[in-house]
């Protein structure tokens, strides 16, 4: 029943994204319109893939570091992606794919650094070290980014910041295909780790006693979730709140077992982002709001309602 509700919500959100928009396209002509094929449909699909990726990445990372505040961008990835994008612009590297590729490279660099920090001094990806390392690397990347923006003379850098705030305006069939090919691999890795993740939420010692390979699970989950986030930030910039709120929604509705929680977070993340993007495109048309603002405006009240229900229970 709950699954049916989630699937119906997904269909409704996708339908709204395809039918609504600043351009008025008569319903009869929708299927023949380039507005539908080249703009709305790829944008809705990219929203589902990116929102879903952020939802799953958030759910797995929260279990991994056993911290309900964890968010896919907490581990320094947004800082790394921003540094990559701004460096590309400052170095005048042109081309449609430069910005996403540079952002992806930057996110991978940050990921590598944090991962290396997590292994420092014999600590085996200690969640506390990962969190601190993520915050430190993120802050460092942010500082270098600001330094570049301050010192370089390219006026485009201001706009690079806008890109970093996140949005689906760059959606195209290429980005959809890229995500559709890329996303299943880390998703399968995370789903395969569902059982050990269940055990890890009990604590490290109990998990080990119950037969989980704690280090291998941590390594796999950390890398897969980070790679999902890196791809998302490369195609859409940093979209906040989805990865933070969706896992909590998923847990409230479907419980904490990861075999159920991860697919539910994928669907819920997709729904939230597609709805938020439709609002971002239409609420103040002809202008467009940054989608991250709308995900917060929609997600936070939902989150507060849930918190009230929890505390009432």
């Amino acid at each position, binding site marked *: 029943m709950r699954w049916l509700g989630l699937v119906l919500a997904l269909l409704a959100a996708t339908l709204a994204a395809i039918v609504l*928009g*600043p*351009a*008025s396209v008569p319903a009869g002509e929708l299927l023949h319109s*380039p*507005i539908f094929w*080249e*703009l*709305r449909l*790829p944008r809705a699909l990219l929203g589902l893939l990116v929102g879903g990726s952020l939802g799953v990445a958030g759910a797995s990372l929260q279990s991994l570091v056993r911290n309900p505040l964890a968010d896919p961008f907490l581990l320094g990835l947004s800082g790394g992606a921003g540094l990559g994008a701004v460096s590309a612009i400052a170095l005048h590297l*042109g*081309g*449609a794919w430069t*910005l996403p590729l540079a952002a992806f490279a930057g996110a991978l660099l940050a990921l590598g650094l944090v991962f290396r920090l997590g292994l420092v001094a014999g600590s085996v990806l200690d969640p506390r070290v990962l969190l601190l390392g993520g915050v430190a690397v993120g802050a460092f990347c942010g500082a270098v980014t600001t330094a570049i923006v*301050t010192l370089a*003379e390219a*006026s*485009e850098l201001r*706009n690079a910041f*806008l*890109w970093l705030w996140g*949005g689906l*305006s*760059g*959606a*195209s*069939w*290429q980005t959809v295909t890229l995500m559709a090919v890329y996303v299943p691999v880390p998703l399968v890795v995370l789903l395969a780790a569902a059982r050990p993740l269940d055990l890890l939420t009990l604590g490290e010692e109990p998990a080990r006693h119950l037969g989980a390979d704690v280090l291998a699970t941590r390594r796999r989950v950390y890398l897969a979730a980070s790679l999902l986030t890196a791809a998302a930030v490369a195609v859409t910039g940093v979209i906040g709140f989805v990865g933070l709120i969706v896992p909590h929604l998923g847990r409230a509705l479907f419980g904490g077992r990861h075999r159920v929680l991860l697919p539910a977070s994928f669907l819920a993340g997709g729904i939230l982002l597609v709805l938020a993007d439709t609002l971002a*495109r239409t609420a103040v*048309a*002809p*202008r*467009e*709001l*940054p989608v991250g603002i709308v995900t917060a405006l929609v997600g936070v009240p939902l989150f507060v309602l849930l918190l009230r229900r929890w505390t009432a229970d």
Partner: protein
Amino acid sequence: MRRWAPLLALFALTCRASDRAATGGGGPAHRIVSLAPSITELLFALGAGSQVVGRTVYCLYPPAARAVPSVGDGLNPSVEAVAARHPDLVVLYRSPQTETAARQLEALGIHTMMLRHDRLEDVARTAQLLGQATGHAAAGDSIARTLDSLLSPPVPAPQARIAFVVWDAPPIVIGGGSFLDELAARAGAANVFHDLTAPSATVAIETIASRDPDWIAVVRDSAGAPPPGWAARSEWRTIRAVREGRFLNLPPDLFGQPSPRAPEAVRLLHRMLSQ
């Protein structure tokens, strides 16, 4: 007109403050630091170029301005770097960010003028103010007259519809609050985003496609250059003008800031549109 009334009132207040600043030093300013590219251009156009002792890193027009030492950023100025040029007048772009810097400079005994010209009629008034403050009042009046004669006739009936695209990800267009909107109108083109009151705004590609401009104007070098890279992407090709390759490459030194050379910009844009 009523819509602009509060702005005009603010402007008048600024003018009074500036007049005081300009006369308070007794006579025209001889060492001027300009903290906005459009103000630097105006100072050189007035014939006060030799009095300019500091500029921002972004002040690149006219070429002679590049010989003036740079004091860094204009919107977030280094008060110490400005003061080190020993100016008797600092001209700032009026914004909440620069007000603190202006107060600090005044505390050091340096006169300041806070000006904001986003539209062409503002340039005419600024030219007169700066002319008086620098001892080039006649040149200021002459620039103001030239701009007024450009702006006073009724706006010609638009021959074409145009969209200014300043960035592609996210798509940012120029709205009715920008001088580019005025330049287009004077050149016989209607900005399809004239209804947006802000100088610029983020919009969806879909919105640009539905407004269906005849031309896409981009501010970039080299008039004969091929269309920008994003024009090849399928999502942008939903816009008719992009599919048909109807791009106008506007040179940045003429279209990058509100300028006393607005009549020249209007003539160039008009020529481009009629080709």
